[in-house]
Every structure is written in C-alpha cells, then in structure tokens.
C-alpha cells in the first residue's frame, strides 16, 4: 500500500501522500498483479504474506481480504500461514483492527519511533499504542518496531523496557539510519542537527541486546528479537534466500519465472509510481519495471550478506542447494580473510554453517567486504 497520510522526515520508502485514493482500482490491480506473478512463478504453496507500505493500515480490510483470496486462489495458502499487516499506531484504532483480523491478518507490525530528550524534537512520535493493547490476545500483536534515537543512554534503556511491557513476543529494534534524500538526513549532514556519537550508539545496541536476551528473547537477526518461537517467518525467508514475490508499486521480488520456461532466479522491481503501475497492470497484468537475472555468484553473495545477519547464519544445506560443488568449508574454511576473522573471534564456521559471533554481529558490515572478495576469488 503506497500511500501515507504525511511524510515523515526520516523515511525514504516509496510512498505517496494524495488527497483521494481510488481504493477499488488499487485493490483490483493488486489482485490482478498477485495472480499474474503467482502464476508466472508457478509457486505451489505460499508460506507468508506481508502487507507493507506506505501505511497499509490505511487500506480497508476489504482490500486485504481480496488480495488474500487471490493468493489462496492461485496457490495453496495454509490456514496457519503468517499474514502480517504493517501499521502505524495512530492509524490503528480498535474497530478496523477487528476487521483486518476477520480478513485474515494474524500478525501486526507496528512502527513506533522512540526518542530521547531533545536533539530531534520534530521526530514523528505518536503515543505508545495503548489503544491497541486491549486487542492483544497473543496472536494479534507481537511485533513492534522501535527506532531508538537518543542522547541519553538511560532514556533509551527505559523506553526499551517500557516496550517490553506491551509487546509480548517479538521486537524489532532499529537505530535510526539516515537515508539519502530524507529531510532528517539533510538536517544532520548539513550540521543543523547533531549526529549521535558512534560509541554511544554501540553502547545502546549492546545494552538493548543484553537486556532483551535476559528477558528471554532470542536475538535471531541483527535488529530482531523473539521469544516463544514468534520469529517472523516472512522476514526470515528474505534472510534465508528463499523466493518471494513483490506485488504493488515499487515492490521487490526474487523468484524464478518458471511459467516463462526460465530456470534462473531474477531480481524484480515493480513500477514505482502508483498511477503508472496501475496502467501497466491494467494493460498487461503486472507492473514489473525491471528484471535482472541473478548469476550464481550474485545469489551466493546475497545469501552470504543476508544469512550472516541471522543467528543461524548460512547453513550448509542452503549453501549446498545453490552451490552443490563448492562447499562453505571450501570457500571460507581455507586460509584467507574469513579464516583470519574466525581466529579473531568475529566469525564461526562449523558443521552448522557460517555465522557471526555475538561480537561479530555488531560489526557485520566491516566483515562482509572481505568475505565477498574471498567468495569472488573462487
């Protein structure tokens, strides 16, 4: 759902703020594109559906229901499949949530911006979604996003602790990333707002990790924590290098278009601008703007860069599925950068695969260039 009520200073998503949305037309197109692409991929079974945006909670439950029906019509959608709706707390009042639940949503991803005192007084900061709390039987609210940005170490900790109180089993914790083209980035890079010191950010991250693990959470990805097995199936599929189909303006996908007789995994992006996207869907059934065949090397590079973000890392099974002849051990177990990183304690390579150590995870972006170089040499 590409539409938002307003522009947030930190957000660089493909989003549009328009006075009126022809929801019926958009819904028809989403349904049509979902059918076309599912058919093209010849996928048998869909494990998860994620409604993202923009602000998808601004759409009506009917639209969500229509898309889910289309998915279930084109492929098998098991009853227990994870179906998530991304929501903005201020647009998440009680009654539509019931409607979404009825439409098939069984997981809610709520974005909340947390900030310490001053430096960013204008940051979009809605109240904690207490209105949603009554609606929280275990399945309906288990994923809250927090963007922590603050000066006061203790403030961040306190807010984290407060979050533990209302989100029960899943938490995504992000430090603010300044994105090119956003108002906030311009203010910080231009010197109008201070950038938080590197060491403070590192301290905040480590404290939050330790606190959440002590509270029984599994730190299963760089920014994601879950307990009682409430991991996000949908997001895990990105990090595990599985196939996914992107439907809607600007959506990204990675799949093999078997329906065309192709055997190669492609990176696909749908047309960004909603009106243009709709015209394309109406005329040819989908709005795929760009498709790039991914070479084996590129697929392995993605698997490595994404897999290492998770606590399970890159497993020998997933690696072997792409690269049956050149094992993980053969690439990263030999003398070289990867071996050095293992000896220094940043990486672990064993029978369970290649993954970051607790310390290494916080430094993943410093580890990856060397690993990619080593992979390219093979």
């Amino acid at each position: 759902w590409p539409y938002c009520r307003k522009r947030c200073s930190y957000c660089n998503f493909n989003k549009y703020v328009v006075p009126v949305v022809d929801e019926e037309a958009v819904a028809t197109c989403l349904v049509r594109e979902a059918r076309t692409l599912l058919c093209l991929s010849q996928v048998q079974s869909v494990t998860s559906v994620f409604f993202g945006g923009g602000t998808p909670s601004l759409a009506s439950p009917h639209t969500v229901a229509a898309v889910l029906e289309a998915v279930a019509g084109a492929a098998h959608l098991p009853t227990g499949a994870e179906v998530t709706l991304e929501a903005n707390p201020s647009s998440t009042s009680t009654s539509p949530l019931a409607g979404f639940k009825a439409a098939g949503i069984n997981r809610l991803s709520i974005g909340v911006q947390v900030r310490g005192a001053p430096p960013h007084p204008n940051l979009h900061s809605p109240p904690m979604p207490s209105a949603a709390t009554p609606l929280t039987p275990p399945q309906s609210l288990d994923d809250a996003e927090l963007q922590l940005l603050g000066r006061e170490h203790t403030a961040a900790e306190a807010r984290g602790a407060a979050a533990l109180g209302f989100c029960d089993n899943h938490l995504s914790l992000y430090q603010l990333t300044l994105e090119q083209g956003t108002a906030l980035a311009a203010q910080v890079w231009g010197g109008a707002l201070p950038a938080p010191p590197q060491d403070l950010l590192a301290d905040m991250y480590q404290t939050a990790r330790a606190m959440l693990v002590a509270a029984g959470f599994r730190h299963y990805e760089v920014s994601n924590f879950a307990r009682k097995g409430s991991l996000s199936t949908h997001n895990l599929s990105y990090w595990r290098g599985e196939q996914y189909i992107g439907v809607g303006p600007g959506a990204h996908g990675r799949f093999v278009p078997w329906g065309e007789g192709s055997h190669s995994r492609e990176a696909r992006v749908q047309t960004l601008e909603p009106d243009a996207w709709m015209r394309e869907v109406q005329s040819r059934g989908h709005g795929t703007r760009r498709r790039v065949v991914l070479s084996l090397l590129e697929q392995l590079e993605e698997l490595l860069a994404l897999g290492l973000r998770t606590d399970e890392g890159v497993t020998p099974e997933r690696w072997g599925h792409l690269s049956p002849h050149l094992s993980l051990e053969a690439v990263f177990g030999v003398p070289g950068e990867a071996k050095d990183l293992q000896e220094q304690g940043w990486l672990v390579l064993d029978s369970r695969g290649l993954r970051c150590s607790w310390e290494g995870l916080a430094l993943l972006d410093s580890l990856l260039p060397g690993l990619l170089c080593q992979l390219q040499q093979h």
Partner: protein
Amino acid sequence: MALAGRTAMWWARLRSPCPAVVPLCYPPWLPVGPVAWERLYSSRGQEKLDMSMYPVESIRNFSIIAHVDHGKSTLADRLLEITGTIAKTDHNKQVLDKLQVERERGITVKAQSASLFYNHDGVNYLLNLIDTPGHVDFSYEVSRSLSACQGVILVVDANEGIQAQTVANFYLAFEAQLAIIPVINKIDLKNADPERVEKQIEKLFDIPIDECVRISAKQGTNVEKVLQKVIEKIPPPQCNTTDPLKALVFDSTFDHYRGVIANVALFGGEIQQGHKIVSAHTKKRYEVNEVGILTPNEQPTHKLYAGQVGYVIAGMKEVTEAQIGDTLFLYKQPVEPLPGFKSAKPMVFAGMYPIDQTEYNNLKSALERLTLNDSSVTVHRDSSLALGAGWRLGFLGLLHMEVFNQRLEQEYNMSVILTAPTVPYKAILSSAKLIKEYGKAEITIINPAQFPDKLSVSEYLEPTVLGTIVTPHEYIGKIIALCQDCRAVQKDMLYIDEHRIMLKYLFPLNEIVVDFYDTLKSLSSGYASFDYEDAGYQAADLIKMDILLNGNPVEELAMIIHHDKAHATGKFLCERLKDAIPRQLFEIAIQAAIGKKIIARETLKAYRKNVVAKCYGGDITRRMKLLKRQAEGKKLMRKIGNVEVPRDAFIRVLKRQTDK
C-alpha cells in the same frame, strides 16, 4: 588535493570571440576561399609542402615565455589564428596544450611547436613558434626550447606585473643571448596598469619603456604588432643550406604506430625522406621515413632546410634512441655535434610501485612510453620488502610528479603506489667499510631506506635552492615568517615598484618541495609568486623518521628530515593519519619513531558497531551494490600489517593544508 586549489587560483581561461581578422597570407596547404575554413590541420592525406620557398632570411624561430597564467597559451592561439594556421573559431583554447592534463589543469606541461606562415611587406615569412611550459617545475623544458630559438616574446600580465617566474624566464633568455620582445598582456582588464608594468620592466630588465607592446591576447588587440616585432627584432638563424646536415633534437614524442617522432631544429643542410642519418650520441644509423613541419599537427613536407624547425620520423623504436639534445647528421658526413643540454636535474624522488605485482610488466611498459614523452623523469629500478618490485623516479618538482602520475592514470589506466617525495640528500661517509662498499666517500641518498647511520657518517648534506618571491608589500610579514619557518636565509630584498617587493632566500630544498608554493599562495591571497634555482648543498643535521601502524613501518612515509623538525612533523603526520585511516575492527596505534624511540603517537579506536539496521526484501539490491563497491575498494587498499589504508591517504597526509 592541494593542487586543485592551486589550479583554481590561476586565472580562469575564459576567452570570448575576438574581432574578425583576415589572415594576410593563407598557408600554402589551404585552398583560398570559404572551404579553407574547414579545420585542416591533420597530417593525413594532404599534399606535401615545398619548404624551399622559405630561405633562411625569411625564417624566425621564437618562444613565448611568461609567468604562469599571464596568457602565453592564449597569445599562441591568436598567433595561430591570425596566420591562418588554424581556423578561427570560439573553441581555440590552448590549441598547443594537447595533453588532457594540460587542458584540465590549465597549464602547459610539454613544449609544443607550430610553424606559422605570415606575409609582411610582401615577403612570406616562416615563423616557428616553440611553446614552453608555464610552471617552475618545468623550467628545464624552457631552456631546452630556447636552444632552438633566436628570440622570445616575454609576456607579462598588465594587472599582476612582473612575477617570480617572469624574472627566471627573462634570465634564461638573456643568458642565451636571445632577442627579447616584452609584451604586456591583458590590457583589456579593468585593473590593468601597463604603465606600472613598463616601469618594472625598465627597472628590472633594463629594457626601454617604448619597446613594450601592449596587447590583449584574449581580444586580439595589437597581436599583429607582435608578429611584426618578431620579424623586425628577432634575427634569422645563422646557418646555411649548403652545409652538411646538422639537426638538433630538442624534443620527441612517441606514436604507437610510427615510433619516435623527433622534433628538430636544422642548424645546417637539409633533410628528406630516404636520407641515411646518424645519431651523434648513439652512432646508430637510420633511414628517414618522413619529414615535416608542425602546424601544430604533423604536416609532411618534401624537405626541411637549414634554419627550419620540424619533425623527423626515422624508424627509431626504442625509448633511448631519441636522446634530447642529440645531433643528427648525414651518414658519412659527420659534423661537430651541437653542445646539447645538461640533462634535467631531478629535484624530487619518489618510489613508484604497482598496486598488484602482477601489473609490474604493464606498468613498466607504460613508464617507458611516458618517459619517452617526458625525458626529464629519471627511472631507477628499486624494490622493497613491503611494496615489492618497483622504481624510484626522479621528478623536476612535486607538480611534475603529480602530472606524471595523472598521465599514467589517464593515458595508460595505471594506478600506482607512490611513496613520500624526498630530495636528493648526500652523506660523507666515515666508515671505511661503507666507503669500500660504495666505492666513494660521498654518496647521494634518494631513498630513505638507504639512509646511512650517523655512526658511519661524518657529515650529512642537503640540497638548497635560491628562491625568488615577488609579492605585494602587505604580505611581507607573513612571508618572512613562512620562510624562517622553512629554515631559509634571506639573501636579498628589493622594491621593484612602490607596492611590490622581490625577495631572495636560500631554502633547504626539502622545505619547499611539498607545499611551500600552496602555503605561499594561500597566505598572500594568491598574489605572491615563486620560482627557484639550484644552489648546491649545505651541511645539515639529518635523521630518518619512520611512521608505524601497530608497530609496522609504513614504507611510503619513511622520510629524512632535519633534526629540529622531527617532533613537530611526527606529531603532525600522526594526527593527519588518524583522520585519513578509516576505523577498523581493532585499535590502531599510529606512531612516529626515530630508530627505536617513539616521538609521537595517536590512537585510532576500533569500530564497535557497524551493521545496517534494516535489510528486508526491498533493501537488498541497494545493499548488495554498496557492499560490492566496498569489496572492490578493499582490493585497492594498501595493507600494512593487517591495517587497511586507502591508497591516496599517504600522499594526502603529507600536504599541510586539508582544504580543497
């Protein structure tokens, strides 16, 4: 890089269309009429010219000399246009500056020649213009070009007046006993003050005021008058076509298809295709394939005659065959060789190594080709434990080094590791063992790695230069302080008019090598100018300083410095390196050391967190692109121990100023 700042300070080369001037005589290869205005100065597919119509009496060989940015290249463009050598368009900017780096930086690095045809009082004249480089680093090229001339046009900016390089170039021409035509350029500028400049010229060079020509090369004003002065005041070359061939090689270029193209000035005889010629230097014999003139591209002719300037292609394939300053003569008709020149004297040495040793042979052949076009670079093979096999190159100055490096990148697509520049120090050895090893007591040190220990040396010597600075008087205080900071000794101070002072200082060369020029320019708002000449050696208290990263020496930054400067320089380099090296997975100690003694230290803390927070379906493509770019960048990093350093970091930290 500070050099960019220097270039930016130079006069922006903006030229507007100049008033139409009809050439008085069309060059012989242009059909007269409108079609003549096609740009026709490529050498292929044209009729060969008959040069016998230009006897010695109607030939003038001259150079234009000037301080940088006083309008030398613009005047050359106008002269080429007026004589119809090139068609007159708005696009003729630095026509003689053929190299990409020359056009980008707005400087002339390599001398170029052009033959102009001009009718004056009913006589057809052949005017050979030999352009000269415009930077202090290249004064060697200037004196080389002057050896083929009988006169010079000395261009002075009507606003800036006489500058340090004007003085240096004047004396080069004066000592070569050439006719000098003073030209005051840029009289169209608002602040032009030609009277003042004329007085300066009279006071400093003893040239009567009424001999100066006031022009605007940009607008074309009075440029014709310059040509007439060239004909009137510059004598024709003194030589004879009936003498045996005697040709001076004053420059050479390398063509991938045709081999060496030697630029020659004929001091006697004639030369044509089929002639068997001999090099006085190598005694090797060649057969001439092609002769011609430069207009400014090669234009084949039937012959070249005594007094003329042109080119010869004679199957020279090897880098070493076209020795500049060599004399060519006819086989079996040997002549007394011309005096030639002193070889260029390198002032700055630096090690050059391939980033990847597998590139060694490619770099070697690129160096060979480039040094053929730039014979002032000296090349010695060198090797180091850390950097592998490479070379130690000698340059005329730091700008020369940067230009050379830029040409390697632009013309040969080679990226290299360059070490800190060093000047040629000397040591008088006291150890009998070392004297025996070197075969002499006085040795020259061009590589800090070879710096002999104090215990086996009775005295160290450092090279000095006599620097000339011309500045408006309001900056005098700051400039004197700068010179003292550089251990310089004042030798002379003279008011050249009410506002301007000329200073002479004896400088240790190493103090001015890296950034003296930039500092001088910035503290005088660009108004002070500088030039220098060699002034021999003086005794100095020298030591070798190493820079260590986590205990491992950085070979690029090893340097020989004066004892008094060690602490300050060491501290400065450590601080600068701290900013230039990206944070890594571990802490990095940056130290300056003399022998085993640490004299300065900075600590670069380890990264504690470096991981992007969000990476979901829509982020992956962008993320991978960035990672792959980082992986590529990593391959280009220089590794010292396990510290990764961007390749240009070391040269960057040597510059005193960080501003662009």
